[in-house]
């Protein structure tokens, strides 16, 4: 069982590195069928951060339930998630340094972008830990919510901008880490990092409270542990 978990963990890291490496090579080689103005050497680091966020929000949730199978308690689940986030970010550091070098990105950008990735990963991981604690199949709800925010927000943005002659970008940006990652110099990214970290902490605490109440309820009625 432990070996199975290790295989999945290694698979997660290799998929993570494979996606990041592919993005770097594609951007550097400009292997795109059409000319994309945003894609360039000077934006390589932002492209890497976007790829990291895509993995964290869209790919990693497919692996999280299997990762948490061996964790019986919320504390173990949180530790497993945080360890995986730590190793994911650790593996990405050499690639991030490479991209930062080529893009001439500043140290502040580097720190804030990595913090955004860590906070986002912690948020997603904590969400799955809570869902596992309350025995909720989160997958369909999660991806539906992701679709609403990440596709719906830009849609609302374009609708409002087109018909209301207003620019709601600042208000909608907080919903999208992808949008925020494109503006690492802005102060709003710090707010989003803090918000994501706070939500992750809150979800983890909520999972622990639920677990404690559940345990208390089981003890009261002398039920077998779930």
């Amino acid at each position, binding site marked *: 069982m432990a070996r199975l978990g290790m295989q999945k963990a290694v698979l997660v*890291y290799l998929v993570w590195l494979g996606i990041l490496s592919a993005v770097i090579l594609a951007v550097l080689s400009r292997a795109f069928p059409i000319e994309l103005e945003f894609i360039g050497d000077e934006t390589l680091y932002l492209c890497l951060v976007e790829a990291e966020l895509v993995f964290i929000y869209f790919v990693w949730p497919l692996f999280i339930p299997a990762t948490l199978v061996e964790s019986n308690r919320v504390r173990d689940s949180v530790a497993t998630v945080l360890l995986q986030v730590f190793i994911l970010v650790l593996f990405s550091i050499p690639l991030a340094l490479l991209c930062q070098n080529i893009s001439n990105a500043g140290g502040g950008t580097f720190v804030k972008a990595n913090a955004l990735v860590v906070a986002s990963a912690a948020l997603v991981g904590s969400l799955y830990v809570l869902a596992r604690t309350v025995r909720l199949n989160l997958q369909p709800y999660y991806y539906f919510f992701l679709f609403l925010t990440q596709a719906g927000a830009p849609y609302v943005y374009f609708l409002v901008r087109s018909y209301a002659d207003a620019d709601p970008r600042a208000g909608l940006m907080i919903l999208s880490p992808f949008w925020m990652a494109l503006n690492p110099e802005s102060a709003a990214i710090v707010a989003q990092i803090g918000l994501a970290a706070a939500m992750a902490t809150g979800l983890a605490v909520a999972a622990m409270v639920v677990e404690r109440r559940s345990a208390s309820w089981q003890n009261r009625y002398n039920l077998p542990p779930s």
Partner: protein
Amino acid sequence: MIALAAALLAQLEVEEIRPLTPYYKKGVWLPIIVTVRSSAGGEFELEARTDARIRFVRRLSVPSNHRATVVLPVLFVTGSGTLTVGGRRYTGPLKQVHLPDLVVVGPADEPPVEIGGRTWYQSKIAPGEEIYLEPYGEGIDAALFPGRPERAPVWTAGGGRFVQPQVARTREIVNRGSFPMFDRTLYPLVRGLPAPKTKTTAAYKFVALYFLACALAGAAALKLGRRLVPISIGVVGAFTAGFFLLFPRALVAQYEHTLHLEGAAARIYVVDSPRDESVTLEFPGLTKPLWDADMTLEIATDRTVVRNVTLRRGAPMIFVGWTESAEAPRAEFAGDKIRNLSDRGWRDVMLLRPAGMAYFGSVPAGGEAAARQGEFPDFAVDIAARFAGRDRKVFGTFEGPERLSVMRRPGYTLEIHRRPDHFLTRAD
């Protein structure tokens, strides 16, 4: 070291300084043919100074008690025309000319912009910052940052006609869109010599090696059990350390644009630095800066080394060179053409071509000139490009009181005929 160099320099006597033509154009290469002699022999560094702040340097080797003739291209930035080579001042005729009648032919699918009777192309070198480039003669003679008039070029091919009202006019067309006419590639950080490695190549290798190492680490972790964390830290630490030790620093970004023109292409290098720094750069072929600044241009046969140039944060420098276009037709300067020259009253013919410069000597009436190949074998295309005409007929003729030279540039259909006199009579 300096004393030794000075001693060696003192042993090099400059016997003759002969500009290829007695005419020069601001910011455009003028080849200077220099004959030197050394009694002791050895390796020397021949230096030429003009009215620019640039030192033009050429390394040469002269056997003891021998003469050597080298070509050293120089640039002028004002109308003074002062020239000193190896400490000896040139006192011969040297006049500034404008060559406004060269026709510029740009890429067919990109509309150029006419400003003040000149043809400009627009390019984006960085997000939010456009420059206008004017291909002219040998390549790019002027570049303009529309929103930053303080970066207006010192050198303009039109003889300094670039004035503030034209800057204002260019602002009006900034929003015409950026023309995707440049093939931009990330070019290397060039700090040492020679420096053919590029950051892109290094990045490819780094990413591939890192992914391979991580895959092996994962396999090792599976084999050894739950030891993924120490193995991961080891791999990441090794690559992080290797990155800091081996990967070129992000101090100077050098971008290469290629502006494709008819029969040739101009190479445009934008060099930027995130902080003030004195650097050494190397470019292929004969390459010039677009701004007059303190620097040393060491000109070799196949490259130009820019030494001691100070890059300022937020103020990219632009260097331009010239490249042959492989698909352009190459006309041969055959003997019958030379006979035709004699029929037209041409007396002295000099030919520049990639294999080297050939001096055809005097052209006897009705006869064929005897080609003496290799008299100046080390300079060819780049200095000839200065005279490249765009009308597909004449690439440039220069007529002085004593001699007549014809420069041709491969890549153009060669139909020799006499250039109208006004071609050269517009000198100041």
